[in-house]
């Protein structure tokens, strides 16, 4: 009996393998020969095993931040160009009024260029293009403006979207403060698709992939508008070529190839350049395939390729590690070329 009690006391040590070899061996011999201790040992082992089901937990990230802050080790320097805003009691009402007026009126003023001729008015839609042509001053869409708070409209209309608000007191010795912010205003630019200004604007938007949502929808709109030979413009083809070169999303690049193939023959040179470049360097085989198919169709219609393009097609047709279908289509494009 005393052996059994002694053994059971040592069972945790036996579990943790902390018993010396001799004691371990003796313990196991006892367990084999004593049914009561064998049952006890089985139960202890099962319990030990069950305890292992308690999962480990991750330390929440904010704990480290708090620790580093309290230890004085979290350095988060303020931007050098922003002066911390300290409210001055004497200017409190001015600061509050200026902030409210600025936020409300900013959206309106963002649509107007010249602060000197500003007259406070409710937010509205201003149709700049309806002024006589000679009265239009070219409008830059990207501009940083500074204006006097008194010039702002007191009307709250339109609830402008503001972001990146900063309070600035550039000179603590004067009685001026400033509130700077970005305000989102919505622009509608109208014009004929053939106008260079519209083409440039569309090209800029095609190249700014983040601005187009959804991008495939914008591409479809470009296809519909610029597949018309009357609107042919090489700048659109060049913009699509840039999308093809730079867009990270293969779905968008595929749509760019499709859109390029619908452009009229007037921009065939730019289209061919873009397709050859995609065939040569696009990392996605589906895009390369679409590009080589388009090239094969173009050559079957009698479009001419220059020597460098022919070299690219030949290289693709014989490239061992290229997708087989791409190779076949490259060979087909070469076969379609008619001798002069």
């Amino acid at each position, binding site marked *: 009996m005393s052996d059994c*009690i002694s053994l*059971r006391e040592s069972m945790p*040590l036996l579990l943790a393998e902390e018993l010396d070899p001799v004691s371990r061996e003796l313990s196991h011999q006892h367990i084999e020969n004593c049914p009561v201790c064998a*049952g006890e040992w089985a139960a202890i082992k099962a*319990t030990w095993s069950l305890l292992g089901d308690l*999962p480990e937990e991750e330390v929440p990230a904010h704990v480290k931040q708090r*620790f580093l802050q*309290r230890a004085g*080790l979290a350095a988060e320097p303020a931007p050098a160009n922003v002066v911390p805003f300290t409210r001055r009691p004497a200017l409190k009402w001015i600061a509050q009024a200026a902030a409210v007026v600025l936020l409300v009126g900013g959206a309106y003023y963002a649509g107007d260029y010249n602060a000197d001729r500003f007259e406070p008015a409710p937010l509205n839609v201003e149709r700049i293009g309806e002024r006589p042509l000679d009265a239009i001053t070219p409008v830059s869409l990207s501009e940083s403006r500074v204006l006097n708070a008194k010039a702002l409209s007191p009307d709250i209309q339109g609830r402008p979207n503001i972001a990146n608000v900063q309070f600035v007191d550039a000179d603590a010795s004067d009685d001026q403060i400033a509130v700077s912010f970005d305000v989102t205003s919505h622009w509608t630019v109208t014009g004929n698709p053939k106008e260079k200004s519209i083409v440039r604007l569309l090209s800029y938007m095609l190249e700014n992939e983040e601005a187009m949502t959804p991008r495939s929808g914008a591409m479809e709109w470009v296809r519909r508008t610029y597949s018309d030979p009357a609107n042919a413009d090489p700048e659109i083809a060049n913009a699509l070529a840039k999308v093809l070169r730079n867009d990270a999303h293969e779905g968008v690049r595929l749509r760019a190839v499709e859109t390029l193939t619908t452009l009229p023959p007037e921009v065939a040179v730019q289209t061919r350049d873009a397709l050859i470049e995609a065939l040569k360097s696009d990392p996605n085989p589906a895009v390369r395939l679409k590009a080589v198919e388009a090239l094969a169709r173009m050559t079957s219609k009698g479009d001419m390729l220059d020597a460098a393009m022919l070299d690219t097609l030949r290289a693709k047709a014989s490239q061992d590690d290229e997708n087989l279908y791409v190779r076949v289509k490259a060979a087909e494009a070469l076969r379609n070329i008619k001798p002069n």
Partner: protein
Amino acid sequence: MKHLTDQELMKIVQAGDYSPASELYDRHSKWIYNFASRILRNPELAEDATQEVFLRMIRHAHTFKDNASLRTWLYAITSNWCRDYFRRADNQAVKEGDEVLATLQAPFAERPDQRIEQSSTARMVKAALDKLTHDQREAIVLARYHEMSHDEIAKVVGCSVGAVKTRIFRAMESLRNILNPVAPQSVATPVEESPVEETNV
């Protein structure tokens, strides 16, 4: 700093440069947080404990012996913090009665998401651990989840190896009865717990 040992990093801290604290936190915080969480049974308290343990590591760096295990030392600090916490809670409970609830966070709390995520076995194990005494829970947690020998546990909690052995034995008896009721009931044993010598870090 990743290539330096704990002892080398602590030498830098001892010299007054606290920059290795972040690296030391990354190496050991998970262990400390889980230990504190299993003892305090409240995730917010475990966060406080973790933060305090590493602050004490910096403040008391000069008492760290360079041949010691940093993790064992941090466990000892955690053990003391938890013990202090329960002592404060007890004192306030005596002084202020129910008002203690307003000033100290209640242990045993779980976030609702944790409750959902845990398996039924994990919940059962947690509930079983909750039924142990503080000393037993501390010893079994260190032995089972932190793979510490009885000798190391004795250093962490500041008692004799014999006391650790007794605590673990008693804890296993209780857990076996709670978790595995089909197993045969154990024979009552005359093991007495050894006197505990408390030492502070």
